[in-house]
């Protein structure tokens, strides 16, 4: 594909991400921080997020396996996870983590397990989409900033 086509595709993908609620305003903040000095800043941040969140997810799973689950720890991990996801604007992931924390507070192990599956699902989905996105963005080349969704 030509560069322009790539860029168009990129824009479409981006719009979809926002419209479907995968990303929120915070992502745009990251985009605004991106400049010539750091042309891949957004990707860097997102990559860091995914790397770090793996650690968190593993911790949660371990905590959930225990009987009874260590809800305090669970809440703590989830709290961090929620914070990280909000830092990059991962909206859907964030909302799922909130639900998880609700069950956590209730001491509802089953609810926690169930919700956590949701969290993981959203997380995985977002990761794939963003990896695609950045791949195309790298291919499309620098110089064109994405338009802000209205």
């Amino acid at each position, binding site marked *: 594909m030509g560069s322009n086509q790539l860029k168009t595709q990129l824009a479409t993908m981006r719009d979809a991400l926002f419209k479907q609620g995968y990303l929120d305003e*915070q992502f745009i*903040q*990251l985009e*605004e*921080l991106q*400049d010539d000095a*750091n042309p891949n*800043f957004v990707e*860097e*941040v997102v990559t*860091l*997020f995914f790397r*770090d969140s793996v650690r968190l997810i593993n911790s949660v799973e371990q905590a959930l396996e225990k009987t009874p689950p260590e809800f305090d720890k669970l809440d*703590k991990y989830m*709290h*961090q996870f*929620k*914070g*990280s996801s*909000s*830092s*990059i604007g991962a909206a859907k992931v*964030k909302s799922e983590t*909130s639900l998880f924390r609700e069950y956590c507070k209730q001491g509802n192990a089953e609810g926690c397990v169930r919700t956590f599956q949701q969290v993981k699902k959203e997380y995985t989905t977002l990761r794939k989409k963003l990896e695609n996105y950045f791949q195309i963005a790298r291919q499309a080349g620098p110089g064109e900033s994405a338009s802000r969704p209205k």
Partner: protein
Amino acid sequence: MEDVRVASSPTSRKVYNNESSVDQIPEGLRVLVVDGDPTFLLTVAKMLKTLNYEVTTCSDSVVALSMLRENKDAFHIVMCDVHMPVMNGYELLECIGDLEMKIPVISYINIFDLVVSTDDRKDSVMKGIKLGACDYLIKPLHLEAIKHIWRYVVLKWRNSELEEFERFGNVMDANRRTTEDAVTDESWRSTKRRKEEEEEAEERDVDTSTLKKPRVVWSENLHKQFIAAINQLGIDKAVPKKILELMELMNVSGLTRENVASHLQKQALVIHHSTTLTSRLLQSLRSSLIIRVLLHYRLGILLCRLLTIGSGMVTLGDPSDVDLVLRGHPTAIHHIPSEFLGASSPSGVDAMHCMGNTSVMMERVLQSRLRGQSLSGISSGTGIQSSMGQLVHPNDIAGQVLERNLSVLNGRNAGYHSSPQSSSLVDYQMDEILDLPGNAFPLSTPADLPFLQSTDVFVDGGRLEVKDPRGFTTSFETFSRLHQCRRQGYEFKNVDLTFEASQHSNAVPQNVHCLPPEWSHQGFAYNQMMGGIRNVFTANKSTFQPENQLGTTRASSMSLAAVGIPEVSCDNMVYATHVDHGVPVNIFKQGHEADDNELDYDDYPSDDNHV
């Protein structure tokens, strides 16, 4: 991309220099961000870098604290998340506070961590603020919010300055207050403690060298207290440290020993200056030179006022103030500082007391001087002083004032012309003065009343000129209006003496206090004096109204009025000195000289001059 999980080892830490940070604001502001979320750290670091700040991130509170401790100048500002794994933000806040660093901390919290209800939200914020956070932000942070964090740094620096300013500001504020009391004791204690902490912190802090200490302004009231402290201590013991202690007891805050010491020195310098000039006059006179201090009610008040002015304790307004004083207007009297009043708030009665005190003080001053007492005064003791015999009473500033004013007065009058009348004025011995008639002077002390033997007093077109036998002339401005002493129930407090009205045909008002009996002097006639005084004013009828004659105040006397007011032109002031001991107040009009013996009682003001 740098590893944002930095600062785990000292080697990875940047070296921070101790250069002045002021010029680095806002660029180069050194920020330490402590957050458990690496994603966030990366984001905020990028943000801060776009602002040209120097960012250090840290995911661990403990590590952050150690960094702060190691190098207090490392960072200008700290930002920390509230919720963190090991040590949360509040705890970190407290720890940073314990470090007593003057570093602002901004805590922030994730928005979803704030409970929906406004109260809880407020509580969270309040908790942070109470723990010392400068601000409480909400994640996700935006660039706009971070942009202005440098202001907190400046504020923090300024606050530490302000705390210093505050102490001095209390002093300065005293100037503006009309009914002012010094700052409270507790504020002194707290500011003192803070100052100590501040000083420690300042040593660690980077840029305080450019800060100038605010100058202490010695307001009227402050000086009052200063004087009172000195009076209490006694001149011998009036060292800055003790003065400061006493002043602190008077609830003065914000002064340092240095302030007191320099103020003390200033007084000394003033006296020094005055004595240099005065010494010319006084030196020429023998040690027994005395000034007769006769205090008129109004003049006494005025004298007090002038004394206060002269001593810099008060600024005289315009001459109309003098009029008010002369009329015994209560409002004008409040300017008289309390040490003259000796008691509570100024009032009409107190003014009289003041006057009495003043006279007493002046007497004592002169007396001591006459006795050749060597008084280690506040003044640092100059050569002049020794020659002056130190016209300083141990407990009295008035003497210094007197000196200064005398000198100023002398200095003001360029016209020193010799008088051929030197012979007519003689120095009188102290003991002679003691023989003065007891009913003559409203002086309250049984102590000897020293008088500066003055010179001829000339009345010249509204000005009294006092000539020194040796040729120095000082002139005084006369009152354009002298109100007769009215019986307003003024009484001297603590005055044992009463004016004996019967002494002379000219009854003296009962409300006038007179000199102690020992003042009666051989050959001295009060009426002579009064006559002489009267001459002054009657001689210049054009200038004086009958009711303005000083003689009407026969009860009282003329103020020494050897008080010059350097900075203020006192057109309405009269200063008259006259001589006792048989030597009349040689008050002349237009050079017309009166002889001692020519004054007679008949000339004394009659009843129309009754007060």
